[in-house]
């Protein structure tokens, strides 16, 4: 089977993937004074902005988020961190084949290594931000429960979903450069269509809106993080399960498109 042999090929290049991820992480903050700390500071600063706007000025109306702006800040951070992983991966993959055009043209290796590296290096960045989140949760009075052990399950679903999206994006952007511009707008829209700055609880009155949000796979992925980190409750297995199936479908489509366009990369990048 073709897809199986392709995966074997990618597996053979795991050392390369590891090295390229390392290179990506090293190079990203090379030349900055704070270096790796930016992995923490970026979401932290974003969280401060949203906390001020939505926590202090607009004041959340959902009692399940607990009282006070600090609880809201925690809730926000739980969603913002994985969202950053998703959005940065998407942005990076839209460029990754073009930026590494000289590799595709000159060196023998499977091109899917590049979007894999883009998603994985952002994943590692996400992991670096995680301890900060855990510390905040502990300090501000939301101690971890046993359900926190389910976070890797949510990560797996998000990884598959993100990688499928990344494969699709990277391959199509080679032919349609406009995707880069479309993507930045799409991600803004998508961000607000995902319960990150608000909670699903706030939408009790509007079943239409909830219905629409339920169609967004990222809703269930982010809710998964909220469940096991913020609320300390069981993840919604059924919804996450369906999301996983959707993610797999997206992955297969993304991979099929990527594979089909593969031969055109060396000429088009």
């Amino acid at each position, binding site marked *: 089977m073709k897809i199986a042999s392709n995966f074997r090929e990618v597996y053979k290049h795991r*050392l*390369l993937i590891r*090295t*390229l991820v390392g*290179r990506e992480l*090293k*190079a990203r903050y*090379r*030349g900055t004074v704070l270096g790796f700390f930016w992995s923490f500071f970026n979401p932290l600063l974003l969280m401060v902005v949203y906390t001020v706007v939505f926590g202090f000025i607009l004041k959340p109306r959902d009692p399940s988020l607990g009282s006070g702006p600090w609880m809201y800040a925690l809730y926000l951070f739980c969603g913002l961190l994985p969202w950053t992983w998703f959005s940065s991966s998407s942005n990076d993959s839209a460029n990754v084949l073009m930026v*590494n055009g*000289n*590799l595709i*043209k*000159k*060196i*023998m*290796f499977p091109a899917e290594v590049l979007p894999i590296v883009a998603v994985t290096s952002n994943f590692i960045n996400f992991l670096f931000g995680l301890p900060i989140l855990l510390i905040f949760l502990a300090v501000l009075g939301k101690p971890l429960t046993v359900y926190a052990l389910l976070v890797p399950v949510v990560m797996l679903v998000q990884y598959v979903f993100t990688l499928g999206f990344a494969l699709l994006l990277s391959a*199509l952007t080679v*032919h*349609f*450069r*406009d*995707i880069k511009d*479309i993507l930045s707008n799409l991600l803004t829209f998508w961000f607000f269509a995902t319960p990150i700055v608000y909670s699903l609880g706030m939408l009790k009155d509007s079943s239409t809106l909830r219905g629409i949000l339920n169609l967004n796979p990222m809703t269930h992925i982010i809710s998964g993080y909220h469940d096991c980190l913020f609320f300390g409750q069981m993840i919604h297995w059924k919804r996450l399960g369906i999301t996983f199936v959707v993610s797999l479908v997206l992955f297969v489509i993304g991979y099929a498109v990527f594979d089909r*366009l593969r*031969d*055109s990369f*060396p*000429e*088009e990048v």
Partner: protein
Amino acid sequence: MAVIELDHVSRIYQKYSAKHRFQTFKSAIVKGDFFKSLKPDELVAAVNDVSFSVEKGQTFGLIGENGSGKSTILKLVAGIAKPSSGRISVQGKVSALIELGAGFHPEISGRENVYINGIMLGLSKKEITRKFDEIVRFAELEEFIEAPVKTYSSGMYMRLGFSIAINVNPEVLLIDEVLAVGDAAFVPKCLDKIDDFRRRKKTILFVSHDLSTVAKICNTVAWMKDGRIRMIGDPKRVVDAYMQDVTEEQEADFQDRKDEATAAAALESESTPASRPAETTPAAATAAPAEPAPAEAAVADDARREQRWGKREVEIRHVILRNGKGEEKHVFHPGESLVIELDIAAKEPVKDFVFGIAVSNSMGIRCYGTNTYIEEYEPVALSGEGKVVCRIEELPLINGTYYLDAAVHKRDGYPYDYHRNMYSFLVSSMIRDEGVARLPHTWEFSPEIKVAPPAK
């Protein structure tokens, strides 16, 4: 045992037309031909039904014009591109000197880049650690290995890339014209290393435009043309055949350009009915000492400009260039004969006449000029039509384009008909010597000095 084997290999590239290339996502969706627009409009066979095999320890050369498919074959053998049809088998580890330092990341140190590049080329971490010092030493970068690669000069960049690729210690080495970019000190080092590979019975696939090197180091040479193998076999014979073909093409090209120039000139003379104003050039005899070599390009251009002056009491009607066999030619090899034929017609009988020729190179430097007066031919009488032939037995010129003056004038320099730079020819030579002319020479070595004669 064949290490590299290509069996009826073709590589078809999909060519997307400009219309589709700039098509945007929006228009693809609006028109609803999303997947259709991803289909190629035209298929181009970069490599077309090519078969050959290279035995272990052999050096196989690929020559041919740009775009003939040589580099595609290297990419196919390296596995970067996949054949559209046919079968390729390669035994053992392959290292490709195609793009040196492809994949270096500018922001991180040379050391880290050595590891990353090595892994890309298929080495394990342990192997790289073992060879690290040797790689750095060969690249002469001991002092700079911790600095980010963006601070490297392009020479340092190339040296490091070459050093990594060669230290992969492949069974099969693919070389694509990479030596063209090295500096004077590093290229011999690379050639030494390649020689070392040959001695160690490694297999080399070598693509180059440097035909003399190809003829010297290869056991077999294939000449590619339009994606197919035109000829394969003994290096000297294939290189010669290729040279012959290039010469013929240059000849045809030359003829085209000449026709164009003639057409343009005809157009110009129509628009200005009067013959070109005879410049108030002091009747310069052909053999007058050449003007000091003009350095600036503008001056050189001026020196190359075609001019014709004189009242044409005696006219040079045609100037024909022939080779030793009497064939009309515009491309010559050094050592070949150049025969310049002037068709002369005198309107009235004259007693005072001198025929002259002069050759200038593309820089506007006069390489040689002479006339019948300098050589003490005494004019007696000239009337009606006639022919003057100047025969240069062995053309002592180097590779390049040359411009020819032809003139008939009086002994005091008064011009009858002076053609300046109106004719040109090419000298095509594999030897890259320099200067204005090739002085006939030989080399001799005392017995203590061992040299191998050039591959002839």
